[in-house]
């Protein structure tokens, strides 16, 4: 095997291949048993370093699973619209203006409510100021998952949680770890 092919295997361990390189990798893996063996060792080293496994030899049962999947129907991509695609797209200026107006209206409303709810004492008007309003950027959609604006951030948070679960399991602290819940069977 060439150094370039080994570099391809290394980059795949890190999930850093583009579409064309994935084509090359698929061709390599389906024709070269050495490539599979070398990749398994790279992956094992990475998994050991990250604490994802404590094995001393790579386990490869991909051939067995592929054989079991031989009779499974091939999936066909349907033209479903994705989650993001279903969101109504409006220009940025619209959201900025709307957000600004909403924030101003909220603060105004709170100020009025604050003044109306003041105890009936001799408070001078200039002391009756509204408290500053803090906005919450992160909203918990359900107890088992979070919703943040950027997919990349959400993925990273999920990775931290899974890593935490796996590490916690290895150190006997699993009872304190939450298991991320997405797309269950």
């Amino acid at each position, binding site marked *: 095997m060439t150094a370039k092919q080994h570099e391809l295997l290394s980059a795949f361990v890190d999930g850093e291949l583009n579409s064309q390189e994935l084509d090359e990798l698929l061709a390599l893996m389906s024709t070269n048993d050495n490539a599979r063996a070398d990749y398994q060792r*790279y992956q094992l080293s990475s998994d050991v370093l990250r604490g994802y496994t404590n094995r001393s030899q790579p386990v490869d049962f991909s051939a*067995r699973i592929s054989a*079991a999947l031989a009779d499974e129907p091939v999936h066909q991509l349907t033209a479903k619209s994705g989650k993001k695609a279903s969101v109504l797209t409006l220009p940025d200026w619209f959201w900025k203006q709307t957000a600004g107006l909403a924030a101003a209206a909220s603060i105004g409303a709170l100020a009025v409510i604050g003044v109306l709810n003041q105890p009936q004492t001799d408070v001078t008007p200039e002391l009756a100021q509204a408290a500053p309003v803090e906005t919450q950027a992160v909203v918990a959609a359900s107890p088992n998952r979070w919703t943040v604006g950027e997919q990349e951030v959400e993925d990273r948070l*999920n990775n931290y949680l899974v890593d935490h679960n796996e590490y916690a399991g290895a150190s006997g602290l699993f009872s304190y770890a939450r298991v991320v819940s997405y797309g269950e069977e």
Partner: protein
Amino acid sequence: MNADQELVRRVQAGDKKAFDLLIMKYQQRIIHVITGFVHDPVEAMDVAQEAFIKAYRALPGFRGDSAFYTWLYRIAINTSKNYLTAASRRPPVTDVDAMDATIYYDAPELKEFETPESSLMSDELQQAIHQAIQDLPEDTATAIKLREFDGLSYEEIAQAMDCPIGTVRSRIFRAREAIDKQVKAVMGGEEQQ
């Protein structure tokens, strides 16, 4: 789109071979997760196989709300719990429900197949890998550490080290080659025993 997302998209579009790569990438981790529940190695392999098959069948419905591994991990845990329930097996404590099996994840009593010899070999492998990293030139060691210990992407490492992404990629590759030499030596030693 990262490599996992691209592979998932290909499987959804009918490329079964792409799923083979996902299996190869995650089989060690999934086996590790499952052996926390199912301590017989043969049964653990069966459960892992079932988990991957379930994942394949469910993949058309995978919306990408989470990373692929997060989703697969959850399937593996559910498959393990279902296996324990179906087999009417319980973790070593008598009044523990299968749902609470996670508490006993990786507990020593569940790792019957981890022999002193295998434990020793595992320690030896870890030491060899860490020693290989210590022996690397500084730039190479920093790149692999940022990748493996801090989980940074190539782009983030390139920013941190102020160098092109291609350099990061080749440094990490050189680190892996050096580590692999040590790994092969350890494995070769094991095979001779």
